[in-house]
C-alpha cells in the first residue's frame, strides 16, 4: 500500500483580523458543498470576513458543518449569530442549517463578479466533478450557462487521478507541466480512464513525468475550451474552482483562447460559497427593507 496520497490537497481556513463581527449589521454565510471539496464563507455587511475549504466526505450535512466550523474557528462567532445562510453546490439540498439553496451556477457568477468586478463577462468554473461555462452581466446575473458533468475529464477529480498515477503532489502539477519546452500533444480528453491508460503507455514509452503532465493539462484545457466556445467567450474572462490554481491548465486555456484570464488576490476556490454569501446578504437586506 502507498504511504502517500498525492491527490490529497491541504484543507485550510482564513480570517480577516481587521474585521470584528460584533460591529456588523448583517452576518451572512454561504456554504458550497461540492463533490470533492466544501467551502464556507462568512461575510460581514457584504465584505469577506472568513472562509474555509475542506474535503467533502460521504455525508453532505457533516461536510457542511465541518466547513462552517472551520470558517468560524477562533472568531467567537456561533451559528446563532449568523442571520442567513445560503447553501449551494451538489449537496445544497442537504444542508440542514441553510435557509435557502441556490444553484452553484448563479453563485459562481455572483462570486466572480465580487472577485473580478463588474467587467467580468465569462466565467469558467472547473470544479471537482464538473465544469461550467457561464456568461453574466455587470451585476453578476447569469445570462447563459453550460455545464458538463457527464464524466470526470476536464475536472479536478481527473487531475487527482493523474496526480496519484504519476506520484506527483497535486499542487506541483501545473508548474511541472510548464517545465517542458516543447508543445506536447494532448492525451484523450473525453474520458479520464482512457487518459489514464494513455498516460501509463506514454510513461512506458519513456516520456518524462513532466511531459505526461503537460499532455494531460493540454487535454484538460482543450476539453474546457470546447465548452467555453459553445457559450462564446467574452472579455473579461475569469476562472474559478480548484483547477484555477493549476497554472499549467490556466496558461494552456489562455493560449487556446488567445485571451488572458483575469488575475485576483482572492482564493478562486471559494467563488461559489462567496456568491452564496452575497445572495444571503442581499436576501437579509431585502427582508429588512420590506419589514
Amino acid at each position, binding site marked *: 500500500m502507498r504511504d502517500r496520497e498525492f491527490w490529497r490537497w491541504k484543507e485550510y481556513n482564513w480570517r480577516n483580523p481587521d474585521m470584528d463581527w460584533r460591529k456588523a449589521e448583517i452576518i451572512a454565510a454561504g456554504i458550497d458543498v461540492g463533490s470533492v471539496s466544501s467551502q464556507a464563507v462568512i461575510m460581514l455587511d457584504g465584505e469577506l470576513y472568513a472562509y474555509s475549504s475542506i474535503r467533502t466526505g460521504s455525508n453532505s450535512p457533516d461536510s457542511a458543518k465541518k466547513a462552517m466550523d472551520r470558517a468560524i474557528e477562533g472568531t467567537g462567532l456561533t451559528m446563532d449569530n449568523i442571520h442567513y445562510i445560503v447553501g449551494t453546490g451538489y449537496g445544497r439540498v442537504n444542508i440542514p442549517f441553510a435557509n435557502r439553496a*441556490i*444553484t452553484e*451556477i*448563479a453563485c459562481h457568477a455572483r462570486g466572480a463578479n465580487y472577485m473580478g468586478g463588474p467587467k467580468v463577462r465569462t466565467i469558467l468554473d472547473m470544479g471537482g466533478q464538473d465544469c461550467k461555462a457561464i456568461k453574466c452581466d455587470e451585476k453578476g*446575473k*447569469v*445570462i*447563459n*450557462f*453550460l*455545464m*458538463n*458533468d*457527464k*464524466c470526470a475529464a476536464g475536472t479536478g477529480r481527473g487531475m487527482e487521478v493523474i496526480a496519484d498515477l504519476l506520484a506527483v503532489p497535486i499542487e506541483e502539477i501545473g508548474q511541472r507541466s510548464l517545465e517542458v519546452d516543447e508543445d506536447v500533444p494532448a492525451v484523450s480528453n*473525453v*474520458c479520464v480512464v482512457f487518459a489514464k491508460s494513455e498516460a501509463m503507455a506514454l510513461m512506458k514509452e519513456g516520456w518524462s513525468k513532466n511531459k505526461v503532465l503537460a499532455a494531460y493539462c493540454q487535454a484538460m484545457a482543450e476539453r474546457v475550451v*470546447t*465548452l467555453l466556445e*459553445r*457559450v462564446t467567450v467574452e472579455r473579461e474572462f475569469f476562472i474559478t474552482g480548484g483547477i484555477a490554481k493549476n497554472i499549467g491548465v490556466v496558461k494552456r486555456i489562455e493560449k487556446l483562447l488567445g485571451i488572458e484570464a483575469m488575475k485576483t488576490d482572492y482564493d478562486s476556490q471559494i467563488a461559489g460559497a462567496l456568491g452564496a454569501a452575497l445572495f444571503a446578504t442581499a436576501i437579509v437586506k431585502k427582508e429588512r427593507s420590506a419589514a
Partner: protein
Amino acid sequence: MIANYGYMDGSGEFFISIDTDKCAACKDKPCIQACPKGMFEKIIDDYDDEVVAIKEIYRKSIKYECAPCKPAKGWISLPCIEACYPKAITHSW
C-alpha cells in the same frame, strides 16, 4: 438567461437550450405536456422566475431520450419546439 441542459461527450454535443426570459413570460408552459417522455418540469429559478427545465434524471441521457422524436432518416419538427410558442426551446443536434 439561456439555460443549456445536456452534455458533450466523444460522440458529440447534446444540449436543449431554454431561453428563460421568453419562457418566464409564458404562463401555459405547453412544452411540459407536449414532450412524450415528460422530460420538462416547471421550476422556480435562482432569480425567482417560473420557468421550465429538463428534469435532472434526463440531463445526462438526452441524446437517447430524444431519439424517438428524432428518427435516423431525419426530423422536420419536434413536439417540444412546436408547442413552445414563445420560441424559447432549441436543440443543438
